[in-house]
């Protein structure tokens, strides 16, 4: 078992595999995991808004933190399937409103294994809200990979949200 480290980073192979909105360039949502706290992904109106983080391998997560602005109710779901589907509920948190400063809040503190994390912003304190950073601390699950893959057989196709950002871009 390795050391606990920051996993939600583009440089560690993490990607945002889905986001329900993007303003500017279509990979705007990768600003959530670029490791910087001064870049952000913002929604383009309406709730709920969703983004999915995908790790290159299943990971053992020990904590999930978020740095955002005007987010009110956010829920976290996990999946350890190959593709982002079959999500299971992890937690739901109501964040406090802040004035001219970021909301920095820990969403979850217990250990769990996941390959994908789905964040659903269910409501906000303003018409639009922003996510500056998501920090996921945990260890790369090199040994435990097999046992997780075991229950992956016979995943029905077309379950859950499997739209890719590319498909969304195709609408334009």
């Amino acid at each position, binding site marked *: 078992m390795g050391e606990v480290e920051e996993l939600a980073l583009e440089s560690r192979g993490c990607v945002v595999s889905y986001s329900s*909105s993007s303003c*500017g*360039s279509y990979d705007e949502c990768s600003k959530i995991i670029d490791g910087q*706290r001064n870049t*952000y992904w913002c929604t383009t*109106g309406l709730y709920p808004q969703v983004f999915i983080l995908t790790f290159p391998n299943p990971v053992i997560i020990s904590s999930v933190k978020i740095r955002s602005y005007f987010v009110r109710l956010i829920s976290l779901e996990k999946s350890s399937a190959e593709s982002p589907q079959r999500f299971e509920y992890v937690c739901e948190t109501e964040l406090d409103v802040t004035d001219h400063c*970021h909301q920095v809040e820990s969403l979850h503190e217990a250990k769990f294994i996941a390959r994908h994390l789905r964040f659903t912003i269910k*409501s906000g304190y*303003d*018409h639009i809200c922003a996510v500056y950073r998501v920090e996921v601390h945990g260890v790369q699950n090199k040994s435990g990979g097999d046992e997780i893959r075991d229950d992956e057989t016979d995943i029905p196709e077309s379950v859950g949200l499997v739209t890719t950002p590319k498909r969304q871009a195709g609408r334009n």
Partner: protein
Amino acid sequence: MFSIVILVHLYGCLAMYNRHNCVWMEIIMSNILRTKCVIVGNCTVGKTALSQTFLSDGRQFSKNYNMTFGVDLKVKTLSIPDSNDTVELFIYDSSGQDVHNNCLSKYWHEPNILMAVFDVTSELSLDSVSHWVALVRSTIPQKAASTTPGVLFGNKTDLVDRRVVSPKTGSTMAEKLGLMYFEGSAKENQGIEEPFFLLAHEWHKLYSEKKTAFDLIA
């Protein structure tokens, strides 16, 4: 014959290779901003007619009265001039019947923009506008309530003889409620697009302002 063969992700934007002309073309993608617009007002002032005329670009006007039950949802996309953005208006056309009052706000929870409609041939419909606006504003989160763009629309201006509400009375009411005043006729397709375009514009402006605020606290 056009044959576009390759679609790649190049320098953060989508590029397309056109084999016929042997050139790379950049696909400019527009940003889609989505906004929830609620239309409220007393029954039979012409809320549904207004949204229908707007949606069909004046081609459709129902001569019969079809009562709206609860809320009808319609979507129309408007592009914002001089920008790369489009606004998707989610139009929530609500029922004006009193019996639906309690559940209306559940249907359009937290709207972004609002349009209150009254009938220029009925003073009563103008008087109840303030009640409707208060109802909508009560569902908007506090932070957003003060910045919510809104329009007051006087419908049925084609009925010149029966008109009882003057434009001045209408605009005074709009000013009092912090709305912008428009009037027109859904039947004649007069002055229908302007309020919607204005609202889409206001939403675009508001969005840019909010985004600047996000930049500032980064």
